[in-house]
């Protein structure tokens, strides 16, 4: 759109102004030339008119001159010069002395020898010239040479010699008012029509520019702004076959490219973000594992120290309780019962300490190539009776064709037993336990996954990250040591495996134990 606020700022505005100025200048030049041309024609016509008038004057005074009737001549001149067209008539000698004049006051005066006059005095006609009359009025004068004729040098007066070619100059003065008026009219007309032409041409140009330049430019500008806002869908609607149309077409195809590029960038950014998120999660996970491992290791060291310190006093308690029981008379039933309680509780302490030591124990294990499915069948066999007693269903879905893995079967059996026992304890008197094995991941990062799922009450989300910490238990006092899962965790980690828990309150809990399949070069 044409910018009305900054008319000279826009392309169309500039073009209109520049073209207007050029048109105005051109019109002025043409007008001036036309004016000069017309003036020339006017001067020629004036010359003709002047010459005709001068001839008239000459003929009018011809007889008078030949017959030397100078008074009559003077009167004729005065009469002629009194007309509208002729203002002043002089007959001059070649040196410029006024011999006869329509104005008697001029007689004997010396007129200035102008170029035209000098030319006429030599017998050559020249153009008119503007001179100031005695009255101050501006006159156009025509100078005509007066040729010598037979009657002139034969006349009785004998004023002129026969060998003289030029006798003098007839100077006729015309008023300039008519010419001035004509000039004025012509100038005004030229200016008026010139202005109309300029205004019309500028308006036309403005309309043309608006249609062919401003409007498409505004469309382009709108399109670019839309693009800048991120709107890639609305193309620029210019269908002309000129440069603007080409520009719009190019712009539209560029917008398409930009859109494609942006989509590509967005996809790329998204995948980069996903990758960053994934890596961040991995780092956080690894960090947590390191912290957890470190925490477990220091807890293990502490547990070992405590266990060692407790072993000797417990030995004393057990020994002396036994000794006392041996020498207690059989009829002292209450004493025997109390001593049995001491022994029982000391044994419970021993179990806790053994658990702590199991958790802390490191070092080599007796790893062999093991079929996890066989190990699980054996483990299930060990607890099957207890499971049946508690009215708990058991589903075993062992994956076929699993590769053998390099593990310590005793330690892993401890892990499976622990997980199954936990599941059974969690469900109480009814429920279902599912045990499954499968191969996960692709070589060389393949794992055998053992899933143990129960239909128990689930684990509170707040407790999920604590279950692998030593001494954390939700079992009733005396039922759990809080060491089963940490010990299992330690064993699985020692096997370069992982143990993951997923739980939903009211639905149950799944433990996934993943153990690495040996890589071909390791196998």
């Amino acid at each position, binding site marked *: 759109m044409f910018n009305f606020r900054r008319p000279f700022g826009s392309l169309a505005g500039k073009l209109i102004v520049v073209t207007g100025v050029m048109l105005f200048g051109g019109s002025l030049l043409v007008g001036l030339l036309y004016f000069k041309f017309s003036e020339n024609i006017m001067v020629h016509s004036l010359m003709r008119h002047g010459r005709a008038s001068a001839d008239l004057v000459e003929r009018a005074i011809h007889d008078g001159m030949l017959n030397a009737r100078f008074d009559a001549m003077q009167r004729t001149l005065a009469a002629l010069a009194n007309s509208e067209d002729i203002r002043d008539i002089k007959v001059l000698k070649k040196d410029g002395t006024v011999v006869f004049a329509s104005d008697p006051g001029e007689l004997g005066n010396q007129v200035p020898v102008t170029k035209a006059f000098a030319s006429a005095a030599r017998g050559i006609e020249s153009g008119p010239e503007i001179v100031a009359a005695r009255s101050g009025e501006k006159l156009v004068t025509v100078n005509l040479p007066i040729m010598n004729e037979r009657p002139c040098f034969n006349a009785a007066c004998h004023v002129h010699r026969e060998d003289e070619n030029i006798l003098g100059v007839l100077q006729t003065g015309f008023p300039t008012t008519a010419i001035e008026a004509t000039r004025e009219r012509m100038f005004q007309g030229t200016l008026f029509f010139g202005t109309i032409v300029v205004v019309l041409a500028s308006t036309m140009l403005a309309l043309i520019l608006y249609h062919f330049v401003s409007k498409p430019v505004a469309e382009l500008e709108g399109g670019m702004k839309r693009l800048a806002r991120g709107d890639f869908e609305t193309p620029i609607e210019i269908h002309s076959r000129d440069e603007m149309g080409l520009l719009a077409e190019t712009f539209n195809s560029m917008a398409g490219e930009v859109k494609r590029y942006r989509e590509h960038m967005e996809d790329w950014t998204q995948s980069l973000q996903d990758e960053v998120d994934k890596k961040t999660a991995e780092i956080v996970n690894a960090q947590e594992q390191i912290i957890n491992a470190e925490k477990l290791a220091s807890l293990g060291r502490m547990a070992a120290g405590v266990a060692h310190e407790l072993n000797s006093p417990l030995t004393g*308690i057990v020994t002396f309780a036994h000794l006392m029981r041996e020498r207690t008379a059989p009829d002292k039933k209450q004493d025997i019962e109390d001593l049995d309680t001491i022994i029982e509780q000391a044994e419970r302490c021993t179990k806790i300490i053994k658990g702590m030591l199991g958790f802390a124990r490191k070092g080599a294990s007796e790893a062999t190539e093991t079929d996890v499915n066989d190990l699980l069948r054996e483990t299930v066999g060990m607890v099957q009776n207890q499971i049946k007693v508690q009215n708990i269903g058991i589903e075993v879905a062992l994956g076929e064709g699993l590769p053998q893995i390099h593990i310590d079967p005793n330690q892993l059996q401890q892990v499976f037993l622990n997980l199954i026992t936990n599941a059974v304890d969690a469900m109480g008197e009814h429920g279902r336990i599912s045990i499954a094995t499968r191969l996960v991941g692709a070589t060389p990062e393949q794992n055998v996954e053992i899933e143990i799922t129960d239909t128990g009450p689930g684990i509170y989300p707040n407790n999920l990250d604590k279950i692998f910490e030593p001494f954390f238990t939700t079992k009733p006092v005396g039922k759990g040591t809080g060491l089963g899962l940490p010990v299992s965790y330690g064993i699985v980690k020692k096997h370069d495996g992982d143990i993951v828990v997923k739980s939903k309150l009211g639905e149950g809990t799944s433990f996934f134990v993943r153990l690495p399949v040996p890589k071909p070069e390791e196998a």
Partner: protein
Amino acid sequence: MSATGKCILVIDDEDIVRVSCTRILTARGYEVDAAAYCADGLQMLEENTYDLVLTDFKMPHMDGIELAAHIIEKYPGIKIVLFTGYTTEETIELARKRGIHAFMEKPFTPEKLAQTVAEVLGE
């Protein structure tokens, strides 16, 4: 268990362990001496003849395995039973290689101790 007249030396820094062992084994007819420090134990080995030494795997100033190895080297006929508490499998393996005859997990019951001692002494 019957009295056998066999002599047993207990070397342990823990009073309660020494007393427990003494009480259990004396009641089963063994002659039992006890030493709290390794140096005392070695001194007693110089002065008396023992059939079996009970000592702890971990004691201040001396490693139980080193002590046991030293005793076996010096008194070839003597049997050694090592108390273990917190021990790794490698340690047990190492002790076995050094000629230690049996291991006794702490805490132990009187029966267990008496049974192990009897087995080692070949009774």
